[in-house]
Each structure stands twice: as structure tokens, then as C-alpha cells.
């Protein structure tokens, strides 16, 4: 059997041993996932969370989180542990919502809100322009042909348009 194969089995046995000898509080899968889905896997895969990355590093981290939860640690304590170990907050899957990092959370919604306001204002301006132009045309038409009010035609046109999509 190839050496890597043996190494994999050995690593698996160590991790399984750690998990099986762990004692303490009962920990549910959902509790573990709530933490691991907010930690980035440090295997170098990119920015996959521990809950998503299927590598041995992610498995090891999941076991560690499980152990820490059994020991009674809170989520914040566990996140702080990994931030201290890493030396920066890049181990967290999303930046905390404070300070400069608030920008990442707020800017998309702010951008859409501002663009939406601009769009609404522009659309209403265009509509006002069109209404003014149509009122001017109607007035001119009525002056030119008082008996042939454009209103009659407009009403007919509106009714026809209402019948079709």
C-alpha cells in the first residue's frame, strides 16, 4: 500500500481518537456547523469555509471546534481563539460589522438605495416632462381645431390601449 494511503488512514485514526475520547457537554451537529460555517479553512483552498472544504485540515478544525464546545466555550471564545492563533481576522469567514469593515456590509445596500432614489427621481422627471409636452400639444390642437378636441381621441386611444397588454 502506498505511503500516502497509510498516512491518510493514520491521520484519520488520530482524529477519530480525539473525537472519541473527548468528554464534556453534548454538542449537536448544528452547533458545530454554526461555528465552522463562519471560519475559513486554512488549507490554502481560497476562502472556503471549514464547513464546506472537505480536506483533512477542515476535518481537524471541525474536531477542535467540537472539543471546545464540549469544554463549554462560547462561539465568541472559539472565534477569538482562532483569530489569536492566526494573528489576524482573516480566519473569520466574514469581517465583523464594525469600523472600516462595516463598509463591506453597508455599501451594496447603500449603493442600490441611492441608485433607486435617483432612478425614481429621474423617472418622475421624465414623466413630468412628457405630461407637460402632451398638455402643450393638446392645448395647441384644441386652439387649432376647437371642435376636434384631442381629448376625444386620447380617451379613445386610452380605452383601446387598456384592452391590450
Amino acid at each position, binding site marked *: 500500500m502506498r505511503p500516502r494511503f497509510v498516512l491518510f488512514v493514520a491521520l484519520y*485514526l488520530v482524529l477519530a481518537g480525539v473525537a472519541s475520547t473527548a468528554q464534556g457537554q453534548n454538542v449537536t451537529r448544528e452547533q458545530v456547523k454554526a461555528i465552522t460555517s*463562519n471560519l475559513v479553512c486554512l488549507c490554502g483552498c481560497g*476562502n*472556503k469555509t471549514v*464547513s464546506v472544504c472537505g480536506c483533512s485540515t477542515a476535518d481537524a478544525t471541525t474536531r477542535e471546534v467540537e472539543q471546545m464546545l464540549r469544554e463549554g466555550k462560547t462561539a465568541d471564545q472559539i472565534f477569538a481563539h482562532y483569530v489569536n492563533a492566526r494573528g489576524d481576522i*482573516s480566519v473569520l469567514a466574514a*469581517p465583523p460589522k464594525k469600523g472600516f469593515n462595516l463598509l463591506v456590509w453597508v455599501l*451594496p445596500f447603500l449603493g442600490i438605495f441611492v441608485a433607486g432614489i435617483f432612478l425614481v427621481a429621474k423617472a418622475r422627471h*421624465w414623466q413630468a416632462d412628457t405630461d407637460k409636452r402632451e398638455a402643450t400639444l393638446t392645448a395647441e390642437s384644441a386652439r387649432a381645431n376647437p371642435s376636434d378636441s384631442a381629448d376625444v381621441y386620447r380617451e379613445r386611444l386610452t380605452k383601446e390601449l387598456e384592452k391590450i397588454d
Partner: protein
Amino acid sequence: MNDFGFYCLTAALLVSLYAFLVSILAGKKVNPILAQSGENAIISSFVLVALASASLISLLIQSDFNNEYVASYTSLDLPRAYKITAFWGGQTGSLLFWTLILTVFSTIVVFQNQTKNRELMAYVCAVLASVELFFLSVLTFVAPPFATLGAQRPADGSGLNPLLQNYWMVIHPPHLYLGFVGFTVPFAFGLAALISNNLNPVWIKTTRRWTLVAWLFLTAGIFMGAHWAYLELGWGGYWAWDPVENASFMPWLFGTAFLHSVMIQEKKGMLKVWNLVLIVMTFEMCMFGTFLTRSGVVSSVHSFAQSNIGSFFVTFIGLSLAISLYFLFRRLQTRQLDPEQRLTAFFSRESSFLFNNLLFLGIAFAIFWGTVFPIVSEAVRGVKVSVSLPFFNNVTLPLAFALLVLTGVCPLIAWRKASVKNFKRNFLYPLIAGILAIPVVMAWGVRGLVPVAFFCACAFVFATVVWEFWKGARARQAAKLENEQPEPFYHAVYMLATTNKRRYGGFIIHVGVVIVFVGIIASSFFRTEQDFVLKPGETGKLKSYTFTYKSFGQRRQENKDIALARVDLFKNGKKLATMRPEKHFHFKGEQPQTEVDILSQFDEDFYIVLVGWDDADAATFKIYINPMVSWIWFGGFVIALGTLFVMVPNRQRRALARTMRQVERHAA
């Protein structure tokens, strides 16, 4: 063969340079002879790039490890099929593949426009040639595919990344590239229209099918990538907001916004400037995606190795954007891009399309911002941060919901000036369907505001599509009744759809989108997962499934060792299948590869992962029950079908096109 490929590539670079310069001259002087020369050069560059590509593929098949690329991405024990697909498995090969597709598309554009769009073609060829020139320059000076190792030639290559040795990863990159490169064509026409000052909407009509083809391939590529991730990465999911996944999604969002808003320009002569901006940004996003994948600025499982190629892409993106904006502002001042009609009413389909665009671009910006924020944070404050799944899920979810609702609302609003009375009448039945969905989904066991809201929105959108088909077919039947024999309903639906393919094909695509949303919400919110440690003969139970671990075994294939487990799967006492999850240990790989086994059913997938095993034969399995994942793939298929339906012209259009071609040939 290596030297032959190198010389072909170098010649292609020179020919593209010639095509670029002579096409610009042809455009400035309005000289048809120079324009023809430029077009001939475009065709010649295709031949040369094709020969260079054939050389590289030949070297890959022959395992000529004197070539650095061949040595880096293949090995003697790699199956032949994967030796060929290694052509796009590495950095320089994929760039050459991109260039090949670009030259193919450029050649097709030349042949398609031999007798039309002559006032645009010189600058179209100039733009296409400029993009070719960029890629060929990178291939010649920065990332040469024909670099040799000489005395350092190894006896065997490093092999292809085991993750890429999969059917879906074989076809996923070509589809993505076809999509990315396809958007170059409408971009070229749009920029040519700006440069040549021919700003009538002919460029949009000419490139409509190109835009649809590019969008179709990009959509298919994204779904294939998600399917590959589901099969290969072993975490039970299909989308992890990886930077490279985002890099393909952002141009898709811009392209989809463009596809919608060009309808307004075609119908009402509005949004001319906006559509030009959209197609420029779609192209730039395609280039940005390529930059992200190759520069190493953000690390990703998809990324090619970090290289200095990033600065070239940044320069090209900056330059092409600056040139596009320069010509846009110049034409704005001449007022040639003024709308032919104005927005008549705020409550109209035109303005609803604007809000549709706002949401598409808003989602694209949110994804872009989340993807680049780590770079921004490190550059501004020197602080490293990660922006991953929690951010993208939380930010895109409400925006996606708004977009889904708008998908249903927009078709209910009339063009020009919708009447509230008409809107209410059209809105009533779909709204009832959406509300009735609440007790139905809750009876199925769906809980939680978000999933219930999404399922109701899906029901609402589906009901609007059904209502549109029903209304249209009934109106057609009523019209026919006045003059002829009564028309059967199914025939009325068929004729309705085929005489207005764009509208009703669009509705089919919307149905596909609804199906995809149902699959995503169900699989995201209602997945069940659990680990089991079983000895052979032992049985586990999860939901209505029981599974018995039968045996464990190992075997060797040509380039890997395989460990596999056999697990019999039962549901309600009836045997469904024997599941065979595996772990692959590639000789050239570093990490073992997980090969999951999946039983896909209409309502849910049974997904089993072999996590590990010990000497006592106990094995650990991770099992996921993923509801309605197959709906995602089926929805993608419906979207593709709807797009093909839109693209294929109906009989009348085909006859008209034939007649037009005969007239043009006669006139020429």
C-alpha cells in the same frame, strides 16, 4: 512541432497587429479595399492560431515533456482524453484556447457581414483584432505555451490536477470561455458604432443572436461548474461563492441586464446610452473574471498559479474601458444618443425594466465588492480579511428575492402607461396563487419566513407565466372564432408561442429560473446531514432511509489507487441502490480526492461520502439528504431550452431571411 507552434503563434501576433492597424485605417479613410484586407488578416490569424493550438494538442498527446506546459499538466499515466483536455487545464493553454475561440468567432463575424454592416465592419474588425492582439502578446511575451525545458526535461510530467479529471470539469471551461468570448462580439459592434458614429440600433439587432449564444454558453458553463462542485468537492453543496465562481457570475448578471434592457431600445428607442454602458461593462467583467482567475490576487481552488499576468490584464481592462468611455462621452455631446421616445409614465413596463436592471447590477456590485474587499482592506489598512459564504448569502438573499418578485410583476405591467385597473386585473390570479402557496408549502413541512416567502414568490411568478399563456391563447381563440373554425387551446398556445418567440421563450426561461430557485431554497434550508461510523454488516438510519455497510475494498487504476466502500441503500424496506463512495489517491496528487456517490431522485438526493476507515474495518460516512437538488439541474435545462426556442427563427422569419439574402446577393 514545438517550433512550428511557436512560429505560428508569432506569425498570428504580427497578422493581428496588421489587422488592427489596417482596419483602423480602413475605418478612418472609409476604404473598402483596406477593410477587406483587414478582414482577410482576421481570417489568417484564425488559421495560424488554429495551427498553433493543433501543435500544442499534438505535443500533449505525444507527452513531449521538452515542452514546459506539457510537463506541467500531463504525465505518462494520464488517460489520453485528459491529455487533450489539458489544453485548457493550465494557464497558458487556456489563454491559447481563449484566443482560438476569439479568432473563430471573429472569422464567423467577417463571413456573416460580407454584404451588410459595411459602415461598421472596419472598426468591428479593429476591436476584435485589438483583443486578439492583447491575448497573443501575453502568449508571446509573458506566458508562452511553447517554452522548452531543454536539458531540464523530466522523464515524466507533473500530471493534471485530479480535480480536473472529471467529465464536468472537461466541458465546464469551454462553455465558460465560449460565453466570455461571445460577449466580445456585441462589445465590438457597440464600440464600432461609437467610433464610427453610426449610432442607429442596427448594431443591437445584428448582435442579438450573438448575445443570446454567449449568454446561453455562460449560463450552461455556470451550471456545469456548480454540478461539478456538487459531484467532486464532497461537501454536499454546489456553490461556495469562490472568487472564481463570482468571476463568472458577475458578467452573467451584466449580460442578463443587457438582454432585458435592449428590448426597450428596440421597442421604444430608449436607453441607448445605458445599453452601450452595459455591453462595455459586460465585456470588462469577462476580462476581469479572467484577470481574477489568473493573477493570484485572490486565492481560489480554481485559480491558476500566481503570475505576473495580472498587471497586463489590469492595463488592458483600464485601456479598453477608457477608450470606450471616451467615445461614449464624445457622442453624448452630439446628442445622437438621445432617446427617440421619453418615459411616458413612472408606472410602466419601461420603468419596471429599469428597476430590473438596478437589481441585477446591484447584485453584481455586491458580489464584486465582496470579492475585492480583501484586496481593498489590505491595500488601505494593511489588514487581511476574508469575505466568504456568510457575507454573500446574507447580502444576495434579499436582493434575489426582490428580483424574483419583479420577474413576476414586470410582465403584468403594460408598455407606455399602465393603468392601475388593468394591472390589478392581471395581478389578481397570480397573487392568489402566491397566497395559496402558503398553506400548501406549510402542509409540506416548510417552516421559516425566508423559505416560505421564496416558495410563494416562485408560485406567484409561475402563475404569471401561466396567466400570460392562458390570456394570449384565449385572445387568439376569440379572434379566430370570428372568422374561421374554432382553434383548439393547445394549438392556440403553440401558435402564440411560435409567432412571438422572444416573448414566450422569455417566459419559458423565467419558468426555468423559478425551478432553479425552488431547488436552491429547498436544498439550502432543508438539508439533513449526519456522520455514521459503521462496521461491515451494520446499518444506519436517516429520515426514511436505511443503509447497510457491506464491504470495503481497494483497487489500482493506471494513475491512482482507489479505496471504495459498498453500502446498500433502502427506503421503506425496498432496496434502492448499492452506493459506492470512494477515495482516490492519485500518484501525482497531494490530497486524496473524494468521489461521492449520489442517488438522485425527483424530490431529494441521497448523497454519501466516504470520510475514512480504520484497521478494524469501521468506516465513517458523511450522509446528506439534499431536497430538490435535481430541480436545479432541470431548471438549468429549461433555461437552455427557452433560450434555444428564442434563438431559432420561426418559419416565416427563416423565409424572410432567405429572401433578404437573395436580394442582397442580387444587389451586390
